[in-house]
């Protein structure tokens, strides 16, 4: 599904990602963990298509196509979805208006017929019931005055409506209390399936208790320094990021001895 090879990215002339290699298969859920400043959010922004990030070298293939050639909106059409860490509020634009415009844009891009108001509302009702999102949130302006939990749930509703085949969840757990975290995670789990892959980016292991990944990668200084199964996350939580970095150091230093 997604194939990242030797990806090097810089922001304002400073290199942040120093050669990422990552391969995500269909239906797989991967988690990327790492300390602050390791390059987690840079990776998510590059996947979303943020223009201020410069790709120095390497490639990102999505379903065999070069993802970097697509604009931000084309990526959504191709099936990439980004759940933002800090979803921006848009006063004046109603959530339903926004969702309908988004869905019909994506459908148009995919060569599907656009939905009329009645068809759209039916779909939206289905999805929001599944995710237990209150009706009034849909009638309000996009993320305007939403609590942290409501914003994240709103992201998941958008994901459910747009039906992407690949989703990046960027620090979805940040700013959530345990109840909100459980609700959001349960929404995400309902959207898991054999055809949808996910990349969960997080600082803490806590989220991965609820969204259990198939693979865990640890990112430090712009590189994936180790990968493993879901247990790697537990080990990290117990021993801290220091452990893995020391461990890595030992490994890299060994041959020179």
């Amino acid at each position, binding site marked *: 599904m997604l194939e990242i090879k030797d990806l090097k990215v810089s922001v304002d002339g400073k290199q942040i990602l120093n050669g990422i290699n990552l391969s995500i298969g269909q239906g797989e859920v991967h988690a990327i963990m790492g300390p602050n400043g390791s390059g987690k959010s840079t990776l998510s922004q590059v996947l*979303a*298509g*943020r223009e201020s990030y410069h790709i120095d070298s390497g490639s990102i293939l999505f379903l065999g196509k070069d993802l970097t050639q697509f*604009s*931000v*909106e084309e*990526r*959504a*059409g191709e099936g990439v979805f*980004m759940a*933002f860490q800090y*979803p*921006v509020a*848009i*006063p*004046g*634009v109603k959530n339903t*208006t*926004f969702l309908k*415009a*988004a*869905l019909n*844009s*994506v459908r148009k*891009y995919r060569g599907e017929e656009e939905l009329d108001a009645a068809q759209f509302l039916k779909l939206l009702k289905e999805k929001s019931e599944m995710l237990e999102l209150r009706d009034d949130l849909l009638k309000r*302006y996009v993320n305007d005055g939403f609590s942290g939990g409501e914003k994240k749930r709103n992201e998941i509703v*958008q994901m459910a409506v*747009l039906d992407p085949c690949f989703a990046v969840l960027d620090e979805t757990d940040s700013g959530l209390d345990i109840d909100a975290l459980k609700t959001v995670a349960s929404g995400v789990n309902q959207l898991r399936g054999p055809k949808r892959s996910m990349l969960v980016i997080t600082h803490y292991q806590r989220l991965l208790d609820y969204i259990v990944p198939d693979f865990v990668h640890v990112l430090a200084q712009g590189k994936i320094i180790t990968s493993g199964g879901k247990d790697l996350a537990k080990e990290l939580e117990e021993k801290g990021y220091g452990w893995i970095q020391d461990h890595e150091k030992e490994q890299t230093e060994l041959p020179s001895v």
Partner: protein
Amino acid sequence: MIDQYQKQFQSFIGDNKSNQSWFDDVRKSSMESFAKLGFPSSKHEAWKHTDLSIFRKEFFPKATVHKNQATSETWKQYLPQNISLENFQYLVFQDGVLAHQHIVDSHLKIESLSTVFQGENDEVASIISEMKPRIEHPFFDLNNAFVTEGLYIKSTGQMNLPLLILYVDSHQDNKAYYFKNIYLAEKNSSLDVIEYHSSNTGNQTSVNIVSQVYAKENAHIEHVKIQNQSKQSFHQSFFCAVTEKNAVVKDFSFTLGSTFSRNDVDLLLKGEGAQGYMYGLYSGVDHQHQDHHTLVDHSVPHCESFQLYKGVLDDDSHAVFEGRVIVREDAQKIHAQQMNRNLLLSQNALVDTTPQLEIFADDVKCTHGATIGKMDEEQVFYLRSRGIEEKQARNLLVRAFVSETIFFFEAKAFCYWSFWRSVSR
């Protein structure tokens, strides 16, 4: 230039001799006032940001109107496509002349301006002569000097349908049209008016309109003006309202068209418990110049006023907002709000905004403010990340920015249509 207006005035008064009226004195003194003032330069405080050089260079002769014009249906092509006439009662000024009318409410009394000038209605005469700008105003003076077309509309009951007054102009040349409307709402009555100004592409006429509005006790007046003339035309508007006890006046000025437009809105809250709401929206492109000058005068206690003016400016357009709120010594326990917000879509667009409060009472609640900003690129990115094309995303955000001004008015269908035509060019 002033000579040419004076010359025109001499022959106009001469031609008009057979219809002598009490208004002739007003005309003469206005012409004298104009001759003294001319078109003020930027040194003149009230005209500081309004460049009148085109009027100093170019003479706009009064358009000759033909009373017996063929009653064609061409005016309908100027209506927004989504508007159904069944939802309105209407009056149509075609090329300066009242050519069509369809009135449903029998309690509406509608008279032509010439009838008013010939008659002896003291109440109307005092509205016409006394409700005037508090600044020196060449366009108001010219209006008094030359106006022949217009209406006196009085409501004594509740309106069933809003009254649409359509001004359409098919000419191309640089003629001047003068209109004057007097709106009077009797005690407990309501009056809903939508003025829609439209003209052919390339039309260069100058429309000068004066609206004088009087709301008696407990009356409710809503006045919407949508100015969608050609981008080459000129527009000057002076709107003035007085409210008696517990009366409510709402005004909405929507400026899209014209290369030059100047709007003055003057509200006097004269009776206790009165409320005034003033909204404005302007959307400038190319080299358009769009002015809104407001004045709210709180002269008595327990009144409320609310002003919200918003602008979206693209290309090399220039907008001016100058808002004054005066709270007189006796006007205790009033609440006045004023806000002007501007969204700049281009590096070269320019806004001059001056909100002012003059408060002489000590127990009042007043707020005012102004903002000028660019589009939030985070919001654009967010919408795009959901598949919405960049142009549509920006349009959505512009619409979000302006919607709170339009939202309150019955005429919103009109506004949206005109606005969308304008921004999705």
